[in-house]
């Protein structure tokens, strides 16, 4: 059976939670025993989210913690039912047709394992084969390919609890893909990994998308993940879609800026800033500047600082670091934009 194309349609999705608040119990702990009303608070997690994702694309879903990202992921995975709104994934309504739906998706949570802690990796795979009813010949081919591309051979016979985090994530990816799902949902897939592991995982995801045409939806806090993978970025904040644009647009606008931090051996020089450079409040012997590389190139800016340093009683330039905006910076810019526009 060929995998059905997983077109995702999300329309005006709304969801709120009720949370109980707890009064303090006091030094003797006795207040816990007095009758009290537990006040409930309602928190709106999603206030009308709409987007469509075409089969075969890679989409990044970004936003601060508590913005509603994981609520969207949970609803798309069929484990949470929204208050209102319409969702279909490949024609199925995830929560209403859960068993059929989850058989056609793969989900990886970066902070949660779906493999069995005490079982060797390969035994876990075999169990998943039976759970997902993967035909034996298909399973053998699929497993062989995943073992090769994710380089699992060395630790297939080790219990999951003995794996390093990087090894475990590779095994998790394979586990989510044994049944060849047309849609792969990744929730923070690179969290906590070292640089080589991150690179390997990104390369694998890209190849999976290109070769198998697997649709990929990922959430992340790492801007490099987005940069390396996403063709399109949806920014979620405060339960709403703040921005939904191709990655190139994001790169040209919000992601273009750079921050330069210059440290000096003594008090930094005062200098007149050229066009496209703004100064941030900084302390002691450092100087922090935000600049737009399209208007002034980084080497030129460094040269300027080198010349200014050491003159008129100020200290010479000692070191420079250039960073790109973090995901939090990008999002706070969207928030500002969102707040200033009606």
């Amino acid at each position, binding site marked *: 059976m060929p995998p059905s194309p997983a077109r995702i349609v999300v329309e005006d999705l709304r969801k709120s939670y009720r949370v109980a608040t707890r009064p303090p*119990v006091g*030094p*003797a*702990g*006795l207040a*816990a*025993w007095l009758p009290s009303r537990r006040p409930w608070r309602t928190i709106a997690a999603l206030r009308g989210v709409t987007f469509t994702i075409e089969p075969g694309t890679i989409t990044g879903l970004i936003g601060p913690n508590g913005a509603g990202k994981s609520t969207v992921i949970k609803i798309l995975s069929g484990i949470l039912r929204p208050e209102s709104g319409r969702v279909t994934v490949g024609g199925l309504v995830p929560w209403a047709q859960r068993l059929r739906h989850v058989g056609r998706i793969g989900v990886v949570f970066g902070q949660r394992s779906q493999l069995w802690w005490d079982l060797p990796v390969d035994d876990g795979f075999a169990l998943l084969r039976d759970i997902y009813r993967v035909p034996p010949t298909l399973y053998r081919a699929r497993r062989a390919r995943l073992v090769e591309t994710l380089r699992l051979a060395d630790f297939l016979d080790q219990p999951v609890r003995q794996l390093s985090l990087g090894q475990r994530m590779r095994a998790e990816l394979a586990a989510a893909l044994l049944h060849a799902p047309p849609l792969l949902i990744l929730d923070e897939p690179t969290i906590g990994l070292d640089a080589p592991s991150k690179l390997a995982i990104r390369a694998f995801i890209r190849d999976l998308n290109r070769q198998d045409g697997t649709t990929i939806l990922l959430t992340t806090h790492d801007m490099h993940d987005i940069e390396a993978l996403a063709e399109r970025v949806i920014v979620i904040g405060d339960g709403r879609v703040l921005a939904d644009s191709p990655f190139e647009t994001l790169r040209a606008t919000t992601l273009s800026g750079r921050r330069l931090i210059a440290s000096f051996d003594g008090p930094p020089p005062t200098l007149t800033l050229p066009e496209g450079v703004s100064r941030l409040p900084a302390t002691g012997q450092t100087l922090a500047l935000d600049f737009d590389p399209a208007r002034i190139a980084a080497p030129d800016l460094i040269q300027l600082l080198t010349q200014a340093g050491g003159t008129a009683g100020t200290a010479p330039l000692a070191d420079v670091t250039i960073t790109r905006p973090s995901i939090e910076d990008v999002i706070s810019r969207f928030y500002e934009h969102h707040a200033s526009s009606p």
Partner: protein
Amino acid sequence: MIHAATPYLAAFRARWQTTMRYRAAALAGFVTQCWWGVINIMIYAAFYHGAHDAAGTAPLGLHQTVTYVWIMQGTLALMPWSCDPEIADAVRSGAVAHDLLRPIDLWWWWSCRATARILGRLVPRALLIVAFAGLVLPLAGLGAWALRPPASLPDAALFAVSILMGLALSASIVVLLNIVTVRTLSPAGGSAVITPLALILSGNLLPLALFPGAVQTLLILQPFAGLGDLPCRFWLGTLHGGRAVLALGQQAAWIAALTMIGRASLRRTLHRLEIQGG
């Protein structure tokens, strides 16, 4: 002196507060214990009523056995069921070496935490059971099923002393369970061994006095008697004079012995951790 005790008092207070938070758990425990008490009392009553001649020769009368059952249900939280749950978590997550190598006397630290946790679980449940079995049942006309008051005021005082010693004893066993958990990397083994011992040897399953006469001395000398049976005997007023002194001395001796064993094996465990890093 006060200053030196500060961290341990803080540990006690924090643990007490967390434990007191679990109001629903305490209420559920109370209902469970009442249920248990009722089943047990019905069974004892059937045995006593069915055999009039044997009841006369039994070392405890039916109403004494009923009182014994209620005290046992009320003080169930005194039993050292398992190690400190946070130690079990730390062992599972592998962070245990961090926890152990703090600049404090770990035995006192653990012992204070254990005492606070046991007390926090014990006090609400015990008060509820006393209220139910001592007040509600007689008022409901079920006096035959009720908890009767201590035999005399001195007996009540001795009961209180004995329960406090039982608390210290239980805490010192919990510390031993903590050590076993750290050594075997699992909380399951230790409690699997302690649970049956505590259940039968404290008198919880059956009053120790009802066991055959031949094993009575052995039963009274073993440490778990101090967790339930000896306090019960004080309440019922069956321990007096020299035997009362002996019973309290027995409890004190076991507290001292288990403390020494605990401190020595904790020292060895920490020494090993310092070398191997967990």
